[in-house]
């Protein structure tokens, strides 16, 4: 097991293994998202209050969840890179940031589209989760801006890792302080005592979408890390050989 992990941390090895792993993430992700989309749009019953508008949760909830998850992946791998000086985990952090930012944007966009018919406005400052999602997007932007401003990759890795860790300490505090406002948002329905307060016909597509989005995130992350590794190792022998052999 340890040997496997050690081998995984070596860039050429990772590059090969990741290529084999991507389909294992991608195929189930597409199947689950396909099922979730169809079941969510056609099979799930209408909500008695929100009508068809509720169906946007099938995109909104998974993206909001992944925006947090991607930040965690980013901060943890940045921390690992900083402490144990593993180059690969810095590459993971660098690759996770833009994906997380995209999911955050998607969560914001779908949240505001849902808000228009439900609240009557595109944007509602009184809603704590929408607001902390916006601050989340700002955190991602700051992280990527710092990375972009430093030319030296090693330095950029370490500096942005410090920022990611400081941000990770702050994320719960930001969330809590924004919660302090009055809330207009729906209370939690998925995770609460006595099981989810949702019809199974609505729930299963949502769970499928969450799992599918997570697998999709995994596939995109692996793909991005692969290119990141290739770029970072562009002066090494194995990349040279890879290019000369036509990518095999």
């Amino acid at each position, binding site marked *: 097991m340890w040997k496997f992990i050690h081998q995984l941390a070596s860039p050429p090895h990772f590059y090969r293994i990741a290529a084999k792993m991507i389909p294992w993430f991608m195929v189930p992700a597409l199947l689950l998202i396909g099922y979730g989309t169809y079941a969510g749009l056609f099979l799930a019953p209408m909500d008695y209050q929100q009508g068809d508008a509720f169906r946007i949760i099938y995109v909104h909830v998974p993206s909001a969840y992944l925006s947090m998850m991607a930040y965690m992946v980013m901060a943890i791998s940045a921390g690992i890179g900083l402490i144990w000086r593993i180059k690969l985990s810095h590459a993971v952090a660098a690759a996770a940031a833009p994906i997380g930012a995209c999911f955050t944007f998607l969560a914001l966009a779908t949240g505001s589209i849902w808000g228009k018919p439900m609240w009557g406005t595109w944007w509602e400052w009184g809603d704590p989760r929408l607001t902390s999602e916006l601050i989340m997007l700002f955190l991602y932007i700051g992280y990527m801006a710092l990375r972009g401003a430093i030319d030296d990759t090693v330095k950029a890795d370490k500096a942005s890792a*410090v920022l990611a860790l400081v941000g990770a300490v702050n994320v719960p505090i930001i969330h809590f302080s924004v919660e302090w406002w009055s809330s207009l948002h729906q209370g939690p329905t998925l995770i609460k005592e006595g099981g989810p307060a949702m019809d199974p016909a609505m729930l299963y597509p949502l769970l499928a979408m969450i799992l599918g989005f997570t697998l999709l995130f995994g596939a995109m992350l692996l793909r991005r890390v692969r290119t990141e590794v290739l770029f970072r190792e562009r002066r090494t022998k194995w990349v040279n050989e890879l290019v000369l052999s036509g990518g095999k």
Partner: protein
Amino acid sequence: MTNEDSSVGLMSGVLGVARRDLLLAWKRPGDILNPLFFFAMVAALFPLAVGPSPEQLQFSGPAVMWVAALLAMLLSLNSLFLSDFEDGSLDQMLTSPVPLSALALGKTLAHWLTSGLPLVVVAPVVAVTFQMPFFVTGYLMLTLLLGTISLSLLGSVGAALTVGLHRGTALLSLLILPLAMPILIFGARTVSLVAAGDGAAGGLYFLAAYAVLTLSFAPFATAAALRISNE
């Protein structure tokens, strides 16, 4: 060397750096005064933009003054490590036997004394122009006192990360502003709540807790960031 010796070195490191920075600031009073004028000017922009209605000014006063204070703090943060970086003092600090985090704390202390504390002192003058009642002004000063401590400490991490980068100014704001939002929320909202007749204890407790949290973590993050920036 005994244990006692090294702890004396720690304290004298913090105070020595703080004293040096205060002396430097004293020689260049513009560095202290300019952010204060900036604070007053940004605060004055809002009445000009919103209109002279006293009710509106009273309502928006706490928020406007807190935003202005936040921006003024950012303005002075940019130069926190810049001159040390340029004249090589930072290299001296990096090789000093005193832990870098202690020196960073000393610099942050001096920064707070020259930019945070003056804001707290000047705030009542600006508050008068916003028709803020006397006891609300007291709470404004208290929240600013606690909030600027955290801002100085949090900002020192950002300043250390961006020192030596040419595009530092806008970048520093991008890094620090999202992290500073809890301070802004609790600072401004607490004053608004007091103005509306509510209690302030919760907000003050939060600001104090956040100041303690940043005090215990930020110097180490700043030291790590300085090492990285100077590699």
